[in-house]
């Protein structure tokens, strides 16, 4: 019941998104495209944080791998779009599988530190492997296929990719696997004693999250026609965590809402004040203290009271 209602709300949200280009100017089309990309990134992250209880400090790595791979495959190697896009996602998945294999051997803060260490390694490669990535100048002039090199078309392309990915993630978190993942979060030890190989469950979450982060990264490259080393830097990992917490890790859409809020605040406040990071810090503190379940947590409570 409740999930059906959520599905309808989600459907309405997508229809509303689809209308954006019809009713607004290019500025908003660009902003909403970027929001959708980061919403997908945040949704992928929440599979780890919200559903798996796994605190990754290095989720930017898979975003960056997807982004760089997409840039290199389409531009340097001149692959056809679908192959390049697909291979970029695949590479994110494989990297997440390799890195995740080591990370899930550890728990809690040690897990987090290892994700961070690997992500910094990815950053170092992006920074140092100048021949391929163009180092700290960034990879610019990405060969984006002509048909999507138009803001409104790219908007709809992103919307469709987001819709498909969000639907897949929705199915995953509600699947038998998703329930098992939540059980491992709720009680690691009890999950082991019902016969669950917890590490393997966590590894699957890591790979899935990395894969969808790779999709977001590849979209980002197509959107910007460029990718920069900053996209692999730890602040990018922190940002996706902030988005998720702002919106609420306890709800499926929370992190996507958080992505929207953070980007909108960023665009509006950064112009008004140079103290934007300070303002953001205060907002985060307020959320953590007063609404630990994030904005969607507040919305849910209000919804329940309203009935």
């Amino acid at each position, binding site marked *: 019941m409740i999930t059906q209602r959520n599905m309808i709300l989600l459907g309405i949200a997508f229809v509303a998104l689809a209308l954006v280009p019809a009713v607004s100017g290019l500025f908003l089309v660009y902003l909403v495209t970027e929001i959708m990309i980061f919403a997908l990134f945040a949704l992928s992250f929440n599979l780890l944080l919200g559903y798996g209880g796994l605190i990754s400090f290095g989720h930017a790595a898979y975003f960056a791998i997807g982004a760089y791979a997409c840039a290199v495959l389409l531009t340097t190697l001149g692959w056809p779009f679908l192959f390049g896009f697909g291979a970029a996602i695949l590479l994110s998945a494989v990297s997440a599988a390799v890195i995740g294999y080591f990370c899930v051997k550890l728990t809690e803060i040690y897990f987090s530190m290892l994700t961070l260490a690997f992500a910094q390694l990815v950053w170092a490669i992006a920074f140092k492997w100048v021949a391929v990535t163009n180092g700290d100048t960034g990879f610019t002039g990405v060969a984006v296929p002509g048909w999507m090199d138009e803001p409104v078309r790219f908007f709809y392309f992103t919307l469709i990719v987001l819709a498909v990915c969000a639907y897949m993630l929705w199915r995953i978190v509600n*699947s*038998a*696997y998703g329930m098992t993942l939540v*059980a491992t979060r*709720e009680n690691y030890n*009890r999950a082991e*004693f019902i016969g669950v190989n917890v590490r*393997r*469950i966590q590894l699957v979450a890591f790979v899935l999250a990395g894969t969808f982060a790779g999709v977001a990264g590849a979209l980002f490259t197509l959107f910007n026609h460029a990718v920069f080393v900053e996209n692999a830097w730890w602040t990018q990992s922190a940002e996706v965590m902030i988005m998720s917490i702002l919106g609420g890790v306890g709800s499926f859409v929370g992190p996507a809402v958080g992505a929207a809020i953070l980007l909108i605040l960023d665009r509006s406040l950064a112009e008004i004040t140079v103290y934007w990071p300070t303002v953001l810090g205060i907002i985060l503190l307020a959320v953590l203290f007063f609404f630990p379940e994030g904005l969607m947590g507040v919305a849910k409570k209000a919804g329940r009271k309203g009935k």
Partner: protein
Amino acid sequence: MSMLTIKNLGMNFSGFKALNGINLEIEEGEKHAVLGPNGAGKTTFFNCLTGQLKPTDGVTHYKGKKITGLTPSRIVNLGIARSFQRINIYPKLSVFENVQVALIADKGMMFNLIRPGAALFRDETAKMLELVNLSAEADETAGLMSYGKQKQLELAIALSSEPDLLLLDEPTAGMSPQETVDSIKLIGDIAAKRKLTLLFTEHDMQVVFSIADRMSVLHHGELIATGSPDEVRNNQEVRRIYLGEHADDAA
């Protein structure tokens, strides 16, 4: 061949021998009680058998297969389930989900990304809850139930793994006298119906003598007696160090 063969099992906590040279065979269908005063090593013994702890000495074979050193999940998959002395459930999930996820794991569906989990094994879950008298609590948050009911849930979760060998660590500890009686009858019935082999620890002597057909006594990490309830009851050493302490309350 015995169902469970324990040879020279030892657990050394940096110098402290919590278990020492345990030898024990459990036959299929046996209801075996492990007795011993607080700190005797009963829980440690269970932990060493189920993979929660890696024993520092000895090997255990289950149905002829060495299980020492295996992970808990592997051991469960072989057919050994357990409950815990200290409640070990998913406190924030519903009672229904607590059991449902155990069934999902047992039926090998835990890596299924497609099938909605909430729709799976609903009938089996309902039956299991009925079995342990938790039908009315199905939608409650597990951790908010009374202690006795959480203990019942603990039992339901363990049974959902469809074990051949079930280890229960003080299944009635903390229960009210009535809950204890009900729970013991239930465990006895289930064990008989499902042809379970039972290994359990318990402080309540009445409980012990009502189910156990064999028993062992642990003392300071050593197994000092094994045999039928009568044999153990009449064992001089046991009388001196264990039953003796309780002789007054029993009388």
